[in-house]
């Protein structure tokens, strides 16, 4: 661009500071939100991929009480298997400065599958004696390479030298036992030793780690990967049929699953909110830039008359919006990266150990910025083109006012009964349909955005109450080891007046369709309840199963369909008819009465007990059959802790939504007022009072904002349901929100818009009639 046009551009930007600032802020907010989520999702996806590739993360593991070398050979000889390794994992203790800490011991023979990633020290070697300890534990407890540590494993005390500080992909999400509801890295740790260093008498391997031939190491599995894993799983289950063997593929691994679902929820937020923000921003950019270009009609005409080429004029006017949008988008993305993005990343670091973890930029962001720039450039291009297509002499003539025929209302008897204000507004709307539509869309999108944000906040906050006051209102939950027999649990149930429940994770099938879900078998009682999609309590069917809404949707089930499932360690396959649907906040699956399960030859083996009586926490360490004792408060605290991050994200989004709403509405209001300024001045010259004029202007804004708000509430509810139903495949909600989010959304968008318009219309009081009625710029 030439020197003088460049100077003009900078001065015009300064002169129209409010409008360009609005465009800048709209781009800034939109990209702030997008980049905040995108940098985390992209960074985590890529780095987990990298971590899994470098460490050859297992494709599957098979666990049982013990595995022999023959078992290993059998697995290794399967055609799908590339390599298999034996491992024994058990919890023990480490003594540090006189204090004992929990440590998970992993005894290995090789280090090729789910390898240790050495951060410091010496690489694992079969001939080396020593221990490799995880970095978080080592850092927090002050352990270094070469230190001598005192350990206790399977009741045997022994000493080892620390050979290395490591991380391991199996422990990306790591809770040492069920006394923890969430990971607490550094408080406990994990360690790897060679099987030769096992301190006990004879080592019984309890897990086989498997690397499959045709499965990639990447974090996001392809359909081919999934099919290969399912086929191998089937073969291995057949290989050990009849034995109590549990087969976990990498996609069902707790860490993999957890990180996957967290990123999925961030991805959903990354799609929904930026889409809304960008739509609003684009609306603002298009309406503002169109008007700004039209405002320079005479100057464009002068340029054309003076002989400037179309290209020079196009480039000049396209530069305005592109420059401002580029600046807004880039700065927004940078701010999003360093604030909300960093915050979300820091929260994720509390839950996941990923040595490669970092924030990354994705092509998506570049594409979205390009789309925003393209849209703004095209807006200006077409606005200029529309003007430049005219002859110079036509451009230099004042633009004739918009013409529109009599509308439908004008032909009815109502017209004559309407006040002047109403008639003026109806005609104004009829003549400026695009402007009116832009106003309605602006308010609609802002309202929808607010309702989505407020609704999300309410639904998230409602989960602890729904789960622990309505569905499982008991004060305590006791977890039993898988091999605890019925009579033992029954004794506890009698002692604590509790309700017994059998809950296991297993494959549920509908024909060839298969998914890993929960099967819940309920004994009599009222401490574990079910609710339908309307939030009404429901009874489980007598002759079949109830299925959670999420599973119904994922497996495309319908009432009356037959589902089948197996219980690990039991040969028999059970078939059941789907009778009803329930809503569950998590642990999606099927549920049935004990009586029905026994009728289809199932053996009721409860592993959970719900009770209102206080259960001592020490049972976990004192009683072999008990693996966990959780008080309701602990669960609620953990849930609130985890949802605190989401809440914070939603607060960020809400704050930005409100700010964006103010910017958009103020901008649209100002633009609309500027277009009416001549008419307002004319009314004033004719003797209309400021009050009358303000009422005319406010009446129109009330109509536009009212329509926009109503449509926004309807749209917002739909977006809310879409967002929450896609946020995480294992999480579900009852999509009923109170009046509060609606009122807040109306308060903010409608009231805000009315207030903004009232402030703008107050300018009628001080309007300079002479200046406003001048025919030239």
């Amino acid at each position, binding site marked *: 661009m*030439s*020197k003088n046009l460049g100077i003009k551009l900078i*001065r015009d930007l300064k002169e129209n500071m409010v409008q360009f600032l609005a465009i800048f802020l709209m781009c800034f907010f939109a990209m702030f939100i997008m980049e905040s989520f995108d940098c985390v999702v992209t960074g985590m996806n890529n780095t987990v991929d990298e971590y899994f590739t470098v460490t050859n993360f297992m494709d599957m593991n098979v666990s049982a009480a013990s595995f022999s070398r023959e078992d290993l050979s059998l697995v290794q000889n399967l055609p799908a298997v590339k390599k298999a390794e034996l491992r024994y994992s058990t919890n023990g203790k480490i003594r540090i400065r006189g204090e004992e800490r929990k440590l998970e011991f992993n005894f290995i023979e090789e280090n090729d599958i789910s390898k240790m990633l050495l951060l410091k020290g010496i690489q694992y070697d079969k001939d080396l004696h020593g221990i490799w300890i995880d970095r978080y534990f080592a850092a927090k407890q002050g352990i270094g390479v070469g230190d001598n540590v005192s350990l206790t494993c399977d009741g045997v005390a022994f000493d080892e030298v620390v050979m290395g500080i490591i991380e391991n992909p199996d422990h990306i999400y790591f809770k040492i036992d069920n006394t923890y509801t969430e990971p607490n890295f550094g408080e406990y740790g994990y360690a790897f030793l060679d099987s030769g260093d096992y301190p006990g008498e004879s080592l019984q391997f309890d897990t086989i780690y498997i690397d499959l031939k045709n499965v990639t190491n990447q974090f996001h599995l392809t359909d081919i990967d999934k099919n290969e894993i399912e086929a191998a799983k089937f073969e291995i289950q057949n290989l050990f049929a009849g034995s109590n063997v549990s087969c976990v593929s990498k996609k069902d691994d707790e860490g993999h699953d957890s990180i996957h679902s967290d990123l999925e929820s961030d991805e959903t937020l990354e799609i929904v909110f930026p889409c809304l923000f960008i739509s609003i921003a684009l609306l603002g950019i298009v309406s503002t830039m169109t008007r700004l270009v039209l405002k320079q009609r005479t*100057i464009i005409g*002068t340029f054309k*008359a003076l*002989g400037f080429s179309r290209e020079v004029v196009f480039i000049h006017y396209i530069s305005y919006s592109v420059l401002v949008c580029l600046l807004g988008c880039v700065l927004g993305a940078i701010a999003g990266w360093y604030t909300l993005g960093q915050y979300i990343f820091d929260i994720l670091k509390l839950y996941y150990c990923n040595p490669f973890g970092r924030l990354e930029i994705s092509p998506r962001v570049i594409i979205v910025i390009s789309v925003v720039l393209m849209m703004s450039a095209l807006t200006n291009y077409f606005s200029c083109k529309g003007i430049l297509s005219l002859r*110079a*002499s036509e451009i*230099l003539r004042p633009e004739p006012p918009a013409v529109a025929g009599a509308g439908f209302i004008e032909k009815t008897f109502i017209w004559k009964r309407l006040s002047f204000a109403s008639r003026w507004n109806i005609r104004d709307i009829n003549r400026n349909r695009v402007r009116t539509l832009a106003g309605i869309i602006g308010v609609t999108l802002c309202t929808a955005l607010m309702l989505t944000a407020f609704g999300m906040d309410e639904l998230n906050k409602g989960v602890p109450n729904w789960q622990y006051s309505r569905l499982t209102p008991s004060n305590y939950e006791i977890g039993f080891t898988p091999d605890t027999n019925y009579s033992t649990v029954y004794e506890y149930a009698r002692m604590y007046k509790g309700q017994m429940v059998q809950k296991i994770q297993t494959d549920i099938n509908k024909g060839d369709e298969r998914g890993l879900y929960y099967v819940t078998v309920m004994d009599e009682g009222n401490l574990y309840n079910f609710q339908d999609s309307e939030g009404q309590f429901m009874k489980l069917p007598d002759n079949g199963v109830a299925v959670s809404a999420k599973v119904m949707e994922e497996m495309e089930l319908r009432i009356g369909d037959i589902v089948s499932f197996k219980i690990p360690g039991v040969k028999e396959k059970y078939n059941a008819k789907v009778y009803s649907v329930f809503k569950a906040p998590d642990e999606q699956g099927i549920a049935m009465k004990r009586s029905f399960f026994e009728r289809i030859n199932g053996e009721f083996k409860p592993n959970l007990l719900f009770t209102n009586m206080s259960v001592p926490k020490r049972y976990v360490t004192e009683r072999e059959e008990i693996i966990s004792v959780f008080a309701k408060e602990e669960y609620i605290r953990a849930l609130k802790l985890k949802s605190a991050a989401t809440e914070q994200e939603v607060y960020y989004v809400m704050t930005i939504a409100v700010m964006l709403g103010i910017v958009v509405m103020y901008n649209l209001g100002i633009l609309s007022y500027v277009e009416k300024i001549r008419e307002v001045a004319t009314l004033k010259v004719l003797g209309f009072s400021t009050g009358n004029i303000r009422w005319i202007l406010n009446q129109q804004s009330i109509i536009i904002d009212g329509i926009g708000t109503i449509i926004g509430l309807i749209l917002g509810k739909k977006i809310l349901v879409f967002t929450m139903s896609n946020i995480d495949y294992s999480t579900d909600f009852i999509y009923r929100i109170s009046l509060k989010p609606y009122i807040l959304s109306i308060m903010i968008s409608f009231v805000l818009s009315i207030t903004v318009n009232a402030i703008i219309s107050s300018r009628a009081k001080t309007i300079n009639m002479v200046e406003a009625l001048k025919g030239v710029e």
Partner: protein
Amino acid sequence: MIKLNNVGKIYRNGQIVYEALHDVNVEIMEGELVVILGPSGSGKSTLLNVVGGLDAATGGNIYFGGEEITAFNDERLGKFRAKDVGIIFQFYNLVPSLTAYENVDLMSDLGIDIMDPMEALKLVGLADKKDNFPSQMSGGQQQRIAIARAIAKRPRLLLCDEPTGALDTFTSREVLKLLQDQSRIDGRTVVMVTHNALFAEIADKVIKVKNGTIDEIIINDNPKDAFELDW
């Protein structure tokens, strides 16, 4: 230099057809100061616009220096205006966000060789206002800047559409003098549209327009000096 043969201009707006020019035949010689005179709606501005390529004639031919400008496409017309034509508008049409100097220097952005903007400002007597924005100057000063902008590129033809329409008597006289000098001293062809019959006295040729046709062409053998005009 300029020759119009049977030039017509018809405006159509839906069903409404308006004939602004009808069968216009005029010849303008190089270095002449021509005044196009007529009442409002007579077609005088339309005539100026088609001559300057700001509008397209719907009939007939217009020749400029032997070239038929009615055969030019939009791009060629743009180049023609950029190189050969200086335009002065009734409402000056300066770029409000550029200073007096920058408004004149803007012509260099057309990619043509122009005179030093300061020289152009000196010619119109406003060198001291070079850093002023249009909003900081009077109407007369703005029009003089517009003239400086038009003459800075040394055009062969200067078109002026009611150049004093928004000015007072004294300032109008100054502007007319400037335009007259362009013709007398620099030998430029100046075509000026006005509804003020008084201006006919300073012209070499007066073209009277009425209802879209040439009513009369008067050759003025002894044009007055602009300062001699008696308002």
